[in-house]
């Protein structure tokens, strides 16, 4: 590892697993260097005292948005399934989730 202690290839491998991305070893190497460069830039905000600043998650204050409880048309099941990669008996088909060591 020739980059700083901000991020290691082991970190990148772990994050790729969390993100459900198969990365090649070349991609892992490149990504480690590039993410390190970005984190170095992001350190500029360390200069700010944020201890008394409230978070802002979106531009407007959160509010409940309610609507009348009226039945509206929704997407047609057959149309939705028609654009899926694989379907079976009116449902999305996926490979086994349990019973395999993943």
């Amino acid at each position, binding site marked *: 590892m020739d980059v700083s202690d901000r*991020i290691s290839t082991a*970190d*990148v491998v*772990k*994050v*790729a697993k*969390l*993100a*459900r*991305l*198969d*990365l090649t070893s070349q*991609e892992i190497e490149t*990504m480690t260097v*590039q*993410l390190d*460069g*970005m984190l170095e*830039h*992001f350190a*500029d*905000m360390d200069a*700010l005292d*944020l201890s008394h*600043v*409230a*978070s*802002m*998650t*979106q*531009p*407007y204050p959160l509010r409940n*948005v309610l*609507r009348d409880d009226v039945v509206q048309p929704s*997407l*047609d099941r057959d*149309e*939705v399934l*028609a*654009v*899926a*990669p*694989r379907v079976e008996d009116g449902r*999305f088909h*996926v*490979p*086994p*989730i349990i019973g*395999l060591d*993943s």
Partner: protein
Amino acid sequence: MTLPTVPSVPSVPSTAAGIAAGVRGGELRAADVVEHHLAAIAAREPEIHAFNLVMADQARAAAAAIDARVAAGEDVGPLAGVPVALKDNMCTQGVPTTCSSRILDGWRPPYDATVVSRLAGAGAVVIGKTNLDEFAMGSSTENSGFGPTRNPHDTTRVPGGSSGGSAAAVAAGFSPVSLGSDTGGSIRQPAALCGVVGVKPTYGYVSRYGLIAFASSLDQIGPFATTVHDAALVLDAIGGHDPHDSTSIPEPHSPLVDVLDRGVEGLRVGRITDLPEGADPDVAERLEAAFDALRDAGATVVDVQVPAFGYALTAYYLIAPAEASSNLARFDGVRFGLRVDAPDTNSMYSATRAAGFGAEVKRRIMLGTYALSAGYYDAYYGRALKVRRLIHDDFARAYMHADVLLTPTSPTVAFPFGAKGDNPLAMYLCDLYTIPTNLAGHPGMSVPFGTGADGLPVGVQVLAGTLDEATMFRVGAALERAALGPKGAA
């Protein structure tokens, strides 16, 4: 601007306003308008690559329907017969919508985005789906999974991004207006680089229903046009509350086309004295000329400070990738798009996403996942949200002293392909001046204001406070008048 020479049917106006007036009045057929633009596309699209899909058949059918309704005496709407190009991250029912990503190649949405149905309701004719940086992540359209778009002013240079196809389509005369989406500058920066008008409205001004999400707290749809008036016309048609988007603003918007002639007498135009450096001299010179033009038109130039402006890049490149890493989790090979088969579900997800996403999208997903992961959440995502608050509050204070703020849109004119190399940060700096507005949720627009290096277009950015589109458009219109006037464009 070089317009293509095309065999033309009856003279077709270059603006949406002119086309709509002609079609509504029965002097111009929507069918001829569409043929005129399809001819322009045929002449130059192979060189520009503005489109992922040209919808010639659908556009012809829509135009014929408009003409029939006009003949029957119907009012077909304020955009009667106006061709519109749509960034290919807006869902069109039954028509491929790709986000310029191989993971969605061939996918046909089962519904229309709200902006698409509103355009149709206003009489517009969708002429095609435009190229973008994959999932709107980029500033050059070089990240498209289907090849880059070229700048109509100089085809060795980028059109900007991520809405580069929509900007190039208008600049090349393929369509008088188009729609883009702007998460950190993706409408305004390509507008500047292509010499057209581009508007990012206040967050919530336009419904995001059917816009494939990149960063949900930042994304907004807005228009590209050759005139400020056309941009207002389109925004008036697509804006307003939508029950399908709970973040769309419930209050109705006043028509923007009505404010354009009001001038800028007495308005306070803010100069940000602590604006981060980085603009090239030719761009800085045009910004000064814009201040002078507004002063000549009766505005006052005042100094304001936005101390946190310079930290926006950091906040944005943590918040936007964090939201993207969550939004893009839906592309997993189950319900739509690409699937790479594997023996178990987790392996199928990982293989599908590895095959379907390009390098920049993977980079942003990784960055966002990292910023949200245990042990780093507070240090990165948490702090970025606080910086966002500082930026918002700094702007709010600035707007107590100024009605609008003026900055460069892009630090440079259009740059050559490959100029940013493999350095993601260099590309991110293209959005230095546009990003803060998205974080604050405020509106911003880019107006062409002459040319810089190599005769390439330069845009000036007008920023305004929440829901103050009216003042922003007045200033945009004044800049346009000045740019077209005797002392205007270089």
